């Protein structure tokens, strides 16, 4: 363990000893500089081009050769983009859909996973197997029959097209959520359930006061996935929200960009990127650990 004491980092491919030699140090410096420069260019470069592109005039943005810094910055493009593409509306729609979907998933999927994990009714395992089996079905295959179902809900004969329900409710049918939640609930000792029962708590009370407070990490993971999925989805909202007024931003920007000058579109792209980039930079630690935890063990 002496090695770990001398370096805060765990041992990787290249040993600390190699790196501390003169040759190793120089190579390391070169590689580090190269990686930092290349990564900055590749990942930050396009974003820089997007933000500055939004400041260029209609002719400058399509100029060949392109300019690296806008000659006469036009902040007005951003204002035009905001009003002409109705970005406020699109951003609101996105939030509305994402958090609605999150709420439905948290209520229904948590309750269902709790039931199959802790309450264990007769046929509970069959229902669970049915839910997990949907993980095998590629989502693109179900687009057509799902669309027909949303067009005319069986038995009830509601048409959900154009309503937020068409986005919210299908997200509940998510086998991966059930899998993650059920597995986490399984790891909570049943003794706690018994103790709660002896104290006179019903299943709802037990869920609320004992299971949920212990499940914060997994609820975080499920929440991130719920929001990200709605926010990234494209084909499904395109089919069920045909009116550009009701579309989430990921889709609306594409629908409304027809016939809009290039510089205004690019300004709109930059605006659309701001909210999530801000959230990411503020919560990057939680988001990155949550995504890897959920993805790894899936």
């Amino acid at each position: 363990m002496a090695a770990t004491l001398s370096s805060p980092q765990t041992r990787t491919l290249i040993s600390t000893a190699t790196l501390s030699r003169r040759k190793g140090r120089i190579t390391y410096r070169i590689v580090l500089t190269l990686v930092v420069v290349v990564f900055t260019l590749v990942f930050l470069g396009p974003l820089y081009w997007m933000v500055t592109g939004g400041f260029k005039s209609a002719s400058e943005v399509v100029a060949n050769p392109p300019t690296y810094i806008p000659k006469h910055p036009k902040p007005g493009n951003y204002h035009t983009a905001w009003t002409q593409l109705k970005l406020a509306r699109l951003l609101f729609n996105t939030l509305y859909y994402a958090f609605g979907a999150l709420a439905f998933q948290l209520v229904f999927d948590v309750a269902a996973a709790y039931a199959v994990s802790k309450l264990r009714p007769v046929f509970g395992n069959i229902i669970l197997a049915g839910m997990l089996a949907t993980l095998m079905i590629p989502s693109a295959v179900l687009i057509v029959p799902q669309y027909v179902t949303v067009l005319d809900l069986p038995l009830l004969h509601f048409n959900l097209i154009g309503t937020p329900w068409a986005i919210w409710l299908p997200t509940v049918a998510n086998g991966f959520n059930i899998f993650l939640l059920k597995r986490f609930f399984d790891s909570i000792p049943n003794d706690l359930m018994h103790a709660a029962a002896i104290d006179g708590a019903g299943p709802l009370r037990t869920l609320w006061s004992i299971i949920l407070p212990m499940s914060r990490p997994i609820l975080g993971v499920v929440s991130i996935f719920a929001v990200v999925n709605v926010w990234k989805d494209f084909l499904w909202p395109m089919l069920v929200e045909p009116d550009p007024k009701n579309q989430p931003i990921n889709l609306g920007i594409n629908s409304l960009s027809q016939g809009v000058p290039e510089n205004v579109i690019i300004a709109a792209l930059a605006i659309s990127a701001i909210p999530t980039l801000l959230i990411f930079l503020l919560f990057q630690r939680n988001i990155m650990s949550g995504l890897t935890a959920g993805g790894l063990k899936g």
Partner: protein
Amino acid sequence: MAATTVPENTTKRHAGRQAGPDRRATGRGPSRKVAANLQAYGFLVGAVLCFLAFSWYPMVREFIMSFQEKKRGVTSWVGMKNLDRVYHDPFFWTAWKNTAEYTGYALVIGFALPFFVAIILNELRHAQAYLRILVYLPVMLPPVAGGLLFKYFYDPDYGLFDHILKTLHLPQSQWLDSSHTAMISVVLAATWMSMGSATLIYLAALQNIPGELYEAADLDGAGLWSKIWHVTIPQTRMVLSLMLLLQIVATMQEFTNVFVLAGGNGPENSTMTVVYMIYQYGFRYNNLGSAAALGLFLLLVLIAFSGVYTRLSRNSDQDG
């Protein structure tokens, strides 16, 4: 065992009368069991209804629709007609070829690159947080914003990429406008947008490799490549193999990037994927039966692939 699996639901009302772990032994057992079951189903009902309406029923319906046709509001059984029509569509094989091409490029670029990047990031002792955030930034863009941005870069008249190639005195490309390069251009954009998540997952896996293994390899005189080949890859094999399966299944269903960047078909139908063709049948030609039939083909291919893949990887796990 049974005592722990059977729910011991004591509602507040009954708590006073029977508050022991052995309530099932009392005469009221059966009705209590029924009540407990009903209560449990109460927790399940919301999710079950959603699964029923938006997953299980559509699944069945997918099969039914493939053999039905709707004309002037009248639905009738047409046997194999839809499957036959789709199969003999002049673009059926084009779409499969394009889909395979997309998946292939995505494997070469989109699968290998994040692993390579993760290995490099794991070795660096500085700027780690900065580099990690950089790689992940594009994942946080709305995917369509990333797509439209790349479309602007790809423009052969004023795009940034041709300008860079020209500055470096390299031959310029038509990118999305040529049937030869359209698909690979889409894959490059898609990789830029999404490689961050895979990189972070690999990075987490790399950090779980015990350092002793590398020390032992050093003692055996192993070089850098041999350490990657004999320690890094075997130690991350589970994650790699799972990610490979997920990625292939996902790229076989490609739609959004092709739609946003190349308008769907692309030049000379060079980017028309199977899912885009499903979309075209269902929502452009309004032929939902044929769209469902094509979906059935896709379902069979993906299920067959996943089955073979899991069997193969399970066998290799037993060998290893």
